């Protein structure tokens, strides 16, 4: 029976997301043009292509962010069910955090965090 709430929740969120996009998709005028699709550079023609070799630091930062973002996402359900998870739940969460802390320290020592 209580699955109805989950269905309602999923339905509402889908409605808001798809409804917003769909409504504006139907109603908003859509006139793509050559200049309109050109990349915006403060009113100037962009110089040179964007397909270049750039610094690897961007990728490293992106990766680290992804890892710790997902970690935060996992912590949310644990925090909700914190009270009835009892002591075992707490220890498991700490172990999970510890593993990620080790990863962070490793990245720190390998100076992946310093921006070159």
């Amino acid at each position: 029976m209580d699955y109805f709430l989950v269905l309602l929740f999923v339905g509402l969120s889908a409605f808001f997301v798809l409804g917003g996009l769909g409504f504006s998709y139907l109603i908003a005028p859509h006139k793509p043009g050559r200049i309109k699709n050109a990349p915006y550079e403060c009113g100037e023609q962009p110089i040179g292509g964007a397909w270049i070799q750039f610094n690897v630091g961007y990728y490293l930062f992106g990766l680290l962010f992804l890892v710790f973002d997902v970690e935060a996402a996992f912590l949310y359900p644990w925090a909700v069910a914190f009270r009835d998870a009892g002591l075992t739940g707490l220890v498991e969460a700490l172990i999970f955090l510890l593993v990620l802390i080790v990863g962070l320290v490793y990245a720190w020592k390998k100076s992946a965090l310093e921006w070159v």
Partner: protein
Amino acid sequence: MTVRVRTLDDICKPPVGAESSLDTQEYLVNMGPQHPIAHGSLRLILRLDGETVKEVTPAPGYVHRGIEKMCESLNYRQIIHLTDRMDYLSALMNNWLVSKTVEKAAGIAVNPRIETIRTLMAELQRLQSHVLWWGVLGMDLGAFTPFLYGFREREIIGALFEETIGARLTMNYIQPGGLMYDIHADFARKVKEVLAYLKPILVEYDTLLSGNVILQERLRNIGILDPKKAVALGCTGPVLRGSGVPYDLRKLEPYGVYDQAEFDVVVGTRGDCWDRYYVRIEEMRQSIRIIEQLVDNIPEGPYMVTKFAAKIKLPEGIYYGHIETARGVLGVTIVSDGKSDIPYRMHFRSPNFNNLWAVTALAPGWRIADLIAIQSSLDLVIPDIDR
């Protein structure tokens, strides 16, 4: 005799790094005419390697209206309204400069009342300009609230101008031979009220922004301009004084009644963005000191020495005058052929034009965020660069 005229496209060719090599390639980005950091329309072509700026090539000219060509067909009174459209944040000082140079050349003596009112108005305008700069610096570095504080003060000082001059931005108030109108009846009382209000405000500015650790982190030791380099690059005003050179025309060549007011020249030590920032905050305090000493005894007398429509003819010759505006030394070179009241040639030495090129010397090596801090600490007004 090698004269080679190049074009902007020679600069704009994208640098090609070796495709296969491991090192990163550089690329060109336009911080173009429409950009929040360009207070106006200034285009900076940045050669970037990842985040670090390799080279900055400013390309001004997007607001070049040819004011110097227009001055060759207007007489001296009509030129005044063009001057406050160049550096609109120190409009009164621009007017004062042309009036002062024309009066000295034509031999018109101006009575002390006019001199005192001119000095008062110039210092109020300097306060208003620094207050706006402070708000916009906060906004450039990401903090939006200083912008609201800054403009609150700007409106209060603007109200003073509006009562006497009637304009908020383009003043056209100081004419060769005196002033456009006399000051408002209770001008002195209102100025004292505003000063009493502004003193605690400056303390509030320090606690709000100056003491903020993020701002100090963004400004300290960034874009260090040593004195030799600053003088070589022709910087003047708070940019030069921030590097430690005490070059302030109000002290060296006292014009108006600056010699009657006792104030000191604010000089920085290291010449980084923080010094240029704090020099302007201190200058605001000095301006308040000057106004306080002058506002009580404004001498009596007519506010206009020559008839308004009188033709002012300058004897033949070349005259150079300059004045200390909020951004540096604004100079004017008037060449008169002695026959008519229209100048033969007029050239403005704009402070922003010379301070702009410090960016090319300061920016390489820093990251884009530091470039924003450097550009904002130089306090540029673009129409003054392009004239």
